[in-house]
């Protein structure tokens, strides 16, 4: 297993390097640059622009810039944010926990909703309950998240005043768990709704497949209790494909949080990224795209490893016995 992971990681290196080169090029191809905004100010003179360009290192040829960035990155130095005059690592580490908190809680909530629902639907496939839940999950999948978010803010926060309309915490207040939760309810609900809808479908179909397997019948024929049949024989098999999807879902989670972070004014990676994209804060942009690529690659490795852990039939130590 260790060897397999190592090999996958080694394989990932050229992919990651390829991606950084491509994104480096794409990002630099963009019209405008980090100076566009400053340059609109009539009081900023040509000499100032030159100074800035030199201090950002943008006067060097692109390959040199890439090389500098790459070698820096390999030593853990992602450069300094143009906008914030701070090391990119610090800027990201300030935002990352918020995004993680938000996305992971949404993820957990969505699974908490989806697993029982998906299983019940599979057991009672085609019953009225199943159809109602399926209907709702389609609704959940079809509601644009940003729209739902705005509606929640308008009704729950503004009209009813039940929950704060945004942010991570009450400002200037001592940390309190309830305060955190209060702030997260609406964004988490919004993100989790769509996610839960999708997961419910996945889990339902995966469970449905498992329910019809011969070994489930064997388990029942052995006289096991219904819950043991379901939980021990059913769940583990049904969650296997789900587990692999989890790994692949990691990068998607961040994407989903991007818009909601803006709506609920959560200070996370999504906002950092949009800001950096609009202002051409290259070091931050590169760091985040690289991170995203890394997450994606890591996600797929994780999902394969998870699969191997869960499914004894897969052995990773040998080369893939793929069809």
């Amino acid at each position, binding site marked *: 297993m260790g060897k397999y992971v190592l090999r996958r990681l080694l394989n990932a290196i050229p992919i990651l390097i*390829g991606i950084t080169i491509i994104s480096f090029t794409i990002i630099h*191809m963009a019209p405008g640059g980090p100076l566009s905004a400053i340059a609109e100010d009539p009081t900023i003179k040509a000499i100032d622009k030159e100074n800035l360009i030199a201090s950002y290192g943008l006067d060097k040829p692109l390959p040199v810039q890439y090389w500098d960035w790459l070698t820096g990155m390999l030593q853990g130095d992602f450069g300094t944010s143009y906008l914030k005059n701070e090391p990119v690592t610090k800027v990201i580490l300030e935002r990352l926990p918020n995004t993680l908190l938000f996305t992971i809680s949404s993820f957990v909530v969505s699974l908490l909703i989806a697993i029982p629902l998906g299983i019940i639907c599979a057991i009672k496939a085609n019953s009225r309950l199943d159809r109602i839940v399926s209907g709702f999950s389609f609704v959940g999948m*079809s509601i644009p998240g940003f*729209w739902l978010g705005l509606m929640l803010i308008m009704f729950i926060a503004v009209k009813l005043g039940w929950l704060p309309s945004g942010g991570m915490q009450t400002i200037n207040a001592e940390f309190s768990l309830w305060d955190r939760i209060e702030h997260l309810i609406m964004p988490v609900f919004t993100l989790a709704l769509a996610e839960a809808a999708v997961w419910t479908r996945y889990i339902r179909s995966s469970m449905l497949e498992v329910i019809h397997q011969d070994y489930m019948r064997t388990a029942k024929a052995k006289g096991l209790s219904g819950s043991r049949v379901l939980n021990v024989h059913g769940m583990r098999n049904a969650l296997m494909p789900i587990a692999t999807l989890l790994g692949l879902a990691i990068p998607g989670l961040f994407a989903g949080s991007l818009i909601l972070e803006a709506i609920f004014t959560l200070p996370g990676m999504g906002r950092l990224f949009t800001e950096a994209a609009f202002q051409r804060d290259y070091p931050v942009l590169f760091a985040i*795209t690289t991170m*995203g*690529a890394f997450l994606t690659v890591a996600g797929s490795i994780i999902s394969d490893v998870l699969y191997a852990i869960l499914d004894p039939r897969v052995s990773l130590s040998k080369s893939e016995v793929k069809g």
Partner: protein
Amino acid sequence: MNVVISQNNPVIEKPKNRSWERFKRNKLAMISLIILIALIILSVLAPLIAPYDPAEQDLLSRLQAPSWEHWFGTDDLGRDLFSRVLYGGQVSLAVSIISVVFTVIIGITVGSLAGYYGGKVDSILMRFVDVMLAFPTIFMLITVVTLLKPSLMNIIIVLIAFGWMGKARLLRGQILSVKNREFVDAARTIGMSDFRIIFRHILPNSLSPILVSATLQMGSMILTESSLSFLGLGIQPPTASWGNILQGAQSLKIMMEAPWVPFMPGFMIFLTIMCFNFVGDGLRSAFDSR
């Protein structure tokens, strides 16, 4: 249910597509399909149907509630919302349908080459898919849309560029399983060319999951387009799309004083995605229980 050709039953039924038969029996999917077709026809015929020019402003009648004159009311520049929603449908549906069609074409080409030929071709193509997949899509989408100008064409291109890999993988897997089916061997023993084998025998039997995923993707493309609009990166006004009509209605004022303005495009997005989802689900079960 097999039709058994027994001696006393000389009537041979007309050949019929069973998946289609089964699909037809799924009421929800059928209704959704009809709604979708209606939506497509309506938006194609927008120039004929729309009572007003979608760009025509009437600053004296801003934010009017739905009425006989303006079925969906008017927006904050006094433009007729019904006409805008019709024209917006053109763009939104075109974006989703065109991008999905090309996504499918690329996915099929790459997937079938990789799946059928295997070996080196397969490794190279799949590595490429890996690279493309490892681009965090939404991030790249935003970066690229920020960089290119957000025209209809560019948005479609970007959606295609980052949307085909799933299809390629799906199809490759599908082909790997179909190409070992015995009828493919049978076709080879007849001496058929690879091309003919792929097109006549393998693809027709591999496409149904692609078709299902394409339908579902059409829904998500509409959603992506409208999310991009929300970030100000989508189709640009004055061209209307459902996403940007909705985006233009984000202010509290409009939401509270003229809720029909965000409601109409929002509802259309919702309805369309919903219909695509139901059709996709219908297709899935129609293909499944073969």
